[in-house]
Every structure is written in C-alpha cells, then in structure tokens.
C-alpha cells in the first residue's frame, strides 16, 4: 500500500500541482523512478527523494524547463522553500497523482496541516484477493463517497468501446448483406438468362416449368453451399491473419491509471480467433437461403417463357 497527498500550491495566482509521496515505497504508487535512459520516470538530473528528506523536491522536466529550475534551485511551496534535488521525466498522459512537483509525504502533510491524510491510496492485491470484496471493504471503512479505480475499469472502458464498435460493425454488415443480396439476385438472373437456349431445349423435350425451377434451385443450393463453405474458410483465414498482424495496443489515454506507475497496466489486447460452429452454420445457411431465393426468382421468370421464345436464343 502507498498513500499520496495531492494539493495545489498558489503563487501570484498561479497553481502548481504538488504530490507528496513516500520515497521509500517504489513498488507501488504513481511513479516508478529510474535512472534508465528513455524509460518512464527517468531521473534526468540529480536524484530521487530519500526517506530522510524534508523540504526537498523532485520536479517534472517540463515544469522545470518552464520555471527555469535546476538541481539546487529553490521553489516556494505553501510559503516554504524547497530545494530541488532532482528533475524527473514523467510523461504527459492523463494519470492519477501526476504532478509538477513531488515532495516527501511527511512534509506535504505538514504543509497542508490536516494531520496524516492522503488523497489517493494505491493498493496492490495479492493474486488470491477478490477485488470486489476489497472494494466493498474499503467503502464500508472509508465511506461510500470514495472513488475506486481498478484495472477492471480499464477493461470496462475497452468493453464499452468494443460495444460501440460492435454496433457500428452490425450496421455496416447489414448494408453489406443488402448489397450482396441484390448483387447475388442480379447475377443469378443474368446466369439463368444466359442459359435461356438450354432451358428452351429442356422445355421442348417435355420439361415442365416446375422441373426447371427445381433443377435451377437445386443447382443454386449446391453452388451456394460450396460458396458458403469456401467463404467461411476464407473469412477464418483473413480474420486469423488480421488478428496476428493487427496492432492491438490500447492507448493509455483512455484510462486514468498512472503512466509511470510502479506496477504496469497491461494494454495489450489479446484477441483469439474462435472457431464457432454456430457462426459457421449461420453463415452457410444465409448463403444457401440467398442461393434459393436468387435461383427461384431467376428460374421462375424464365421457365414461364414459351419454348419457342427460349429456342430463338440459340
């Protein structure tokens, strides 16, 4: 567990965001200081806060540049002078307890003068813990007004976006289905009309209109069945290739989780291509139904021609 105290310090009417934190707790909290180059929360100059520090500050790199602060500079917080001991690069994404100036928690509590208070507490649950139960327990001891943000909230945000995407995809699919239906009926009619002469021969040798409708409909069922199976196979392959090659890293900006938090949030979205017999059945059935409709519409029209009219096409 790590607690932080966030507050604003005003000087000449300009606010500065201050976060007081425990220097000795680095496994959990809003930032994870490091001396590694390019890493999030890199100490670019000086050092990080120490347990024994009082009235010292680590300043965000951007803020230091705008205020012309360096290691050894003094900064006024709540009417007290703080010595800048380090410059840190915290990144710019939205986050909890992100600040322009980081100071030791004890000193922060002294300045705010409200006792041992915290505005945000970071908890790391053990793998066996039930987040729901912990959430309930916090609310019962701290009060219902407390805001609890969990990694599940991130998933909920992603799920919400996914629902929106799903609704849009359903709309697009509907338009595609209508267009494909019209196209299939049109091409089926064209295919049947191409066989006008052949149908004329069948009628001349005694095929009834119903026999011709039956034949063309059966042909269409077989064709659409084969088409449906091939279509499902191709769709599976394309989906598989897409998922394998798609960049499915969710941007951190859609969550308030600290960008340089000690514990990282997994933003890699794993999507598995599920082989769903139910979905395949629906796909093939839709193709067959479409085939039957298209075949019936085309054959019904052409079978009503007199044999002589059809034979003239030969």
């Amino acid at each position, binding site marked *: 567990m790590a607690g932080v105290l966030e507050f604003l310090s005003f000087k000449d009417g300009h606010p500065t965001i201050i976060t007081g934190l425990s220097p000795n707790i680095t496994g959990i909290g809003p930032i994870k200081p490091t001396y590694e180059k390019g890493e999030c929360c890199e100490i670019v100059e000086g050092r990080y806060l120490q347990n024994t520090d009082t009235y010292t500050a680590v300043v965000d790199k951007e803020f230091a540049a705008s205020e012309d602060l360096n290691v050894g500079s003094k900064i006024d917080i709540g009417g007290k002078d703080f010595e800048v001991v380090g410059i840190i690069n915290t990144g710019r994404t939205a986050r909890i307890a992100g600040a322009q100036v980081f100071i030791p928690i004890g000193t922060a509590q002294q300045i705010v003068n409200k006792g041992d208070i915290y505005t945000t507490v970071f908890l790391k649950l053990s793998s066996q813990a039930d987040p729901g139960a912990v959430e309930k327990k916090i609310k019962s001891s701290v009060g219902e007004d407390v805001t609890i943000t969990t990694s599940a909230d991130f998933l909920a945000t992603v799920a919400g976006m996914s629902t929106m995407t799903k609704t849009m995809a359903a709309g697009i699919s509907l338009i595609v289905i209508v267009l494909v239906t019209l196209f299939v009926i049109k091409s089926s009619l064209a295919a049947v009309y191409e066989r006008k*002469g*052949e149908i*004329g*021969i*069948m*009628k*001349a*040798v*005694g*095929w*009834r*209109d*119903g*026999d011709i409708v039956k034949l063309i409909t059966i042909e269409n069922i077989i064709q659409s069945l084969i088409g449906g199976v091939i279509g499902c196979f191709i769709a599976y392959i394309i989906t598989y290739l897409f998922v394998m090659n798609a960049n499915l890293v969710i941007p951190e900006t859609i969550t308030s989780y600290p960008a340089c938090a000690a514990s990282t949030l997994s933003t890699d979205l794993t999507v598995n291509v599920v082989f769903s017999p139910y979905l395949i059945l629906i796909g093939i059935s839709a193709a067959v139904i479409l085939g039957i409709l298209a075949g019936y519409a085309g054959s019904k029209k052409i079978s*009503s021609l*007199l*044999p*002589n009219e059809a*034979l003239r096409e*030969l």
Partner: protein
Amino acid sequence: MINIRNITKTYGDKGLAKVKALEDVSFAIENGEMIALMGASGSGKSTLLSLIGGLDKCDSGSISVDEENISALNAQKLADFRRDKVGFVFQQFHLIPTLSVVENIMLPLLPSGIKKAECCSVAKEALEKVGLGTREKHLPGELSGGEQQRVAIARALVNKPEIILADEPTGDLDSKTGEKILELLQALNQKEKVTIIIATHDDKIAKKAKRKIVLKDGKVIEDEKL
C-alpha cells in the same frame, strides 16, 4: 391422327410490324404418315411445326392430336404432351454442349421420374438405333454434324413418340450425310410407324415422303400424296 383446323399465327407486337406467319391453315394427318412440308423460306413451315409440337400457341383455330385439343392445354399439360407424344429434330441439332451424348438423349426421360440407371440404359438403346453406340461419353462438340443430328434423332425417339417433327434436319449437313439421316427417319416411319413431318425446301427430300404439303405466304397451296 392430327387435325389442324383454321389456324392463324401472327408475329410482331409492341409497335413492330405484324407478320402473318400462318393464315387459315387446315388439314389432317393420319397416324404413320411421312409428310414433307415444303415452301420457300418464310412460308410458315417452321411455325406450323412449332404449333403442331406445342412449342408455341396459335392465335386462332385448333390443333388436335388423337382427339385432344392441344391448343387449349395449359403449360404443364402441354409439356407432358411434348414429352409423351412428340420428338423434335432441329436444323441446328440443339444439343446441350456441356452434357455428354448419352446425357443429352436422357434429357426427355429425366422429368418422368424414371430411375437414372434405367434412363441411361434406354438412352443407350436409342443411341444404338442411330448407329452411335460407341460415342456415348463424347460431348456434342466432339462429333461431326451428321453424328450430332443422329444424337438429336436418338433424343427425339427415346420417349417412343407418336410424332417426329423435323425442321430442315439435313439443312446443315452435306448431301451424303443428309441422305443417311433421311434413311434413318424413313426407317423409323416404316418399322415403328412413327408419324414424321419434315419441313424442307429440298425436292429430293420431299420425294422420300408419302405426302407433300406446300405452303406459300402462310397458306396451304398444294397437298398431294406421292
């Protein structure tokens, strides 16, 4: 017996000039006759064959075959009539190019509900009759014109029809092959007593028939026994 009474057929509608293909045509044909239907191109021979065979409908008058007025039949019964009583032989053979020879011959049998194996054996029998027993698996495009016309004749006979209607059956063939086709039709007429009506403008073919009917501008101008 075929009874043709006062039939008239006009082509052309929707603003096109109307052409009278047949005008008040009447005559009767006895079972087992072999008739040459003669006349120049456009005289109405093919139209008359189409009407007798139920491929088209006349505007007025009636055609009866064995006392059944085929002019009054609905589409289904007319299809049954064509399947059971008539065999057609066309000048351009009208075989389906994607089907094999035997499949083309089986075509009239398939809607009758006969099992496919039986259809196949009947079709092979018909193919033997026209002397092409060895060509059953070939596609029409792999045969000569004369052979294709023989296949068309086998298809016409496969349902054991009472009437064979042949529209210029030798028109696309050389004289020697045409002669053989005619001999085949003559043999069918003599041995199996099939009524044969051949539309032609060739006098040599007409001489093989027992009766000659001549059409001019859609009217019968001559009807004589030979």
